[in-house]
């Protein structure tokens, strides 16, 4: 037959091409990382452009902040600033800027660059996404110091100010519009600054020879490869193509770690925000604390942690604090919060007490005679949340609440939850250095917006004047002991009123391969979080990791 020839030839060609294919191997000393999931990259290293499609190194390896907060140690690590202090009753914040640091083009770094960066945020509102200028009144250089005056004392704003990436004045002063600037040739103070190659699926950034930490970084260059989805990241990890990643992998120990226990490692500390079930307190009967507590008791959190989260987390206690806030956790508040224990019988009794008797078909009825029925909203793409919502709905049905999961596309879910257009919804919570913003979002009256008005926090629309006064005192608290006392009081308030229903503390994904590099943080050496998702904390890792 005539066809046989060409077909056989092309099969042979294909095989020859394939057999000749070497595995992708970077040069020694080049650390391969993936954090962004995308099929292609665009060249953009603008660290101020939070709204843009900015490459990972911009805020994780190139541009540095004044101070880095380490959530594992609960400490502030001096970085471009050597120290900071509050004065004038908290109205004045003074940073002493490091001497001897240089920009990667050789020009000296100084307080002028810090002042310039903050003034840039005030001039270009699109860049001030942390709304720093809501708190700042003025900023000026004072010798080697940077002096910031706050409109009124507000301790929690320290994090956002301290961790703002700083850009060089002598370059950015000539940028006509920094909000649309792609900064293709970055000049920065960080450990990795030289973009040596950039293609749409792979790029490399070499180390900064002028880095201010002498002898660092030990890694020669960083390489970034594009992977469009989790499956591809997983395959690359298994094939030893990647040194560092932050992917969610189901059954990670069986699939990844056990394949090569000497070099495949994962560490998922529970320092991401706690995931909550939000109950819309503007809808009856969810305004009744007994009902919220009863719903909470009907949730089998052990099962959620084991099945939906593959055993990566544990049930949350009633304070809703993740391990990032472990040093604030008050054991007496935890002990009082018995409403997170799975107890269908008590849940049923509490619902009876709240005046919601079972009607025909076993479904409970409100005072108006209508059956108690809720959709549990969740984004469809978060497979772990969807599984958790299913376990929640099953538990609620067992106590006579007609609940069903409604998984929708991310934006639709966000629109409903932010407008308060829901009964029950699974959602994240605030993550910061202290639980201030978490509890502010949970129960301050100032964060309650009317239904229908999109809100970034307090979706359940719950406010307590008692919480307001504690939060106001925290804004002024400079003494750690007082701070701790106030957070204890907030925890007790939260446990008493159950504004939202905590489910589990969020794990922060991180995997590494130790066959080429050492010095990654792990449970034995928890000097920093492993996850490459945290900025600017990745700087702590990049300045420690070394080639074997």
């Amino acid at each position, binding site marked *: *037959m005539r*066809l046989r020839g060409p077909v056989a030839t092309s099969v042979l060609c*294909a095989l020859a*091409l*394939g*057999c*000749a*294919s070497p*595995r*992708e191997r*970077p040069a020694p000393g080049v650390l391969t990382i993936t954090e962004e999931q*995308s*099929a*292609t990259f*665009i060249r*953009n290293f603008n660290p101020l*452009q*939070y*709204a*843009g*499609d900015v490459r990972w190194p911009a805020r994780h390896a190139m541009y540095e902040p004044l101070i880095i907060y380490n959530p594992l140690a609960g400490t502030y690590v001096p970085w471009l600033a050597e120290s900071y202090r509050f004065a004038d009753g908290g109205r004045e914040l003074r940073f002493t800027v490091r001497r001897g640091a240089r920009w990667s083009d050789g020009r000296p770094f100084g307080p002028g660059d810090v002042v310039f960066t903050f003034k840039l945020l005030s001039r*270009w*509102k*699109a860049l*001030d*996404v*942390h*709304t720093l200028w*809501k708190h700042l009144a003025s900023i000026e250089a004072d010798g080697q110091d940077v002096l910031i005056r706050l409109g009124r004392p507000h301790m929690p704003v320290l994090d956002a100010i301290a961790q703002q990436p700083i850009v060089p004045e002598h370059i950015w002063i000539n940028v006509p*519009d920094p*909000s*649309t*600037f*792609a900064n293709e040739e970055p000049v920065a103070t960080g450990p990795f600054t030289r973009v040596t190659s950039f*293609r*749409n*699926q*792979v790029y490399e950034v070499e180390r900064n020879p002028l880095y201010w930490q002498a002898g660092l970084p030990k890694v020669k260059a960083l*390489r970034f*490869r*594009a*992977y*469009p*989805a989790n*499956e*591809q990241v997983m*395959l*690359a990890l*298994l*094939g030893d193509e990647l040194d560092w990643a932050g992917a969610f992998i189901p059954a990670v120990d069986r699939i990844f770690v056990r394949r090569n226990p000497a070099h495949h490692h994962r560490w998922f500390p529970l320092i991401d925000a706690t995931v909550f079930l939000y109950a819309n307190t503007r809808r009856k009967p969810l305004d009744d604390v007994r009902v919220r507590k009863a719903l909470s008791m009907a949730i089998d959190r052990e099962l959620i942690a084991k099945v939906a989260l593959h055993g990566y987390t544990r049930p949350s206690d009633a304070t809703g604090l993740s391990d990032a806030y472990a040093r604030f956790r008050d054991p007496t508040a935890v002990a009082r919060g018995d409403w997170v224990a799975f107890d269908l019988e008590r849940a049923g009794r509490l619902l009876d007490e709240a005046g919601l008797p079972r009607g025909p078909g076993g479904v409970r009825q409100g005072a108006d005679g209508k059956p108690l029925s809720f959709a549990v909203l969740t984004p469809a793409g978060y497979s772990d949340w969807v599984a958790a919502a299913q376990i929640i709905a099953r538990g609620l049905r067992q106590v006579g609440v007609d609940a069903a999961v409604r998984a929708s596309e*991310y*934006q*639709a879910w*966000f*629109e409903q939850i*932010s407008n308060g257009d829901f009964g029950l919804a699974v959602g*994240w919570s605030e993550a910061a250095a202290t639980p201030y913003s978490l509890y502010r979002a949970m129960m301050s009256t100032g964060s309650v917006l009317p239904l229908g008005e*999109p809100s*970034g*926090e307090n979706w359940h629309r719950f406010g307590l004047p008692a919480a307001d006064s504690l939060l106001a005192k925290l804004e002024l608290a400079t003494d750690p002991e007082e701070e701790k006392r106030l957070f204890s009081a907030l925890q007790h308030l939260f446990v008493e009123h159950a504004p939202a229903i905590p489910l589990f503390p969020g794990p922060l994904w991180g995997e590494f391969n130790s066959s080429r590099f050492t010095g990654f943080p792990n449970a034995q050496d928890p000097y920093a979080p492993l996850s490459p998702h945290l900025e600017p904390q990745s700087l702590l890792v990049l300045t420690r990791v070394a080639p074997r």
Partner: protein
Amino acid sequence: MKYLLRRLGFYALAAWASVTLAFAIPRLMPGDPAVAMFARFRGKLTPEAMEALRAAFGFNDAPTWSQYLGYLGHLARGDLGISISQFPAPVGSVIAGALVWTLFLTGLAVVISFTLGTLLGMVAAWRRGRWFDSALPPLLTFVGALPYFWLAMLALFVGGFTLGWFPTGHAYDDNVTPGFTGAFVGSVARHAVLPAATIVVATVGGWMLGMRNTMMRTLGEDYVLLARAKGLSPARIMVRYAARNAAVPNLTGFGMELGFVLSGSLLTEIVFSYPGQGYLLIRAVQSLDYPLLQGLFLTVTLAVLGANWLVDLVYVWLDPRMRRS
């Protein structure tokens, strides 16, 4: 000639319609780019920052007709705007980066699949009832009916990961520089084998079946009988008499398919981490990136029109009746 001119007039009208549709379709989608942005920031944006971002992204509340006129004006100057999902890259360059790879991979796969399927269909019809005809079409239909994602994952896992014969992703090796060098061309070819092969395997059955069935009918025609009676060689009858006529319906399908090549193959691109239009499209939809969506719709519709124009030309060559009318 007159036929071709008439078609040209039709294409001009269709081109205007596609330009307009590319403008209208994103705006008819549910959702609002501003809300999408609010969601992307998890709601942590003050009204002032939001306003400033809207300005930076070029959103405006002008009436639709004036937006449409502005769009036509920019289009005339070849300016497709700034992408939102890949801000601040211009849409033109974002699409250009993906277009080449889509054209290469999906185009190659469609051409191979069509050619192979048509040839196989021809042979199957010619040898109807024999083992080749009774075994291959059901087998290929079966393979084609498998979920593509599953098939591609299997190919990636076995061919790329377990056996290590082929790379597990990307369009070419990290360590080669693009250019007309043997190393680059070889690397591109190696990276294209698995993704192209999965598309071919998944689609070849359809072409084969279509060709086989039309060819069966053609083989019963009087002119084939006449050719046999004249004593022409079987190969000549098969190719020049039967297959040439039977190929026309398949060719129409091929024209359509060729146009849609530019919309990319989303699943192929995701499974094999291949750069291309399909992934851009899904990302643009997810983030309500109007400028990018407009650009993508425009390239796809114009490509469909262009491909159909080419098919029209080929018809004239294949079918003498067209030349006369």
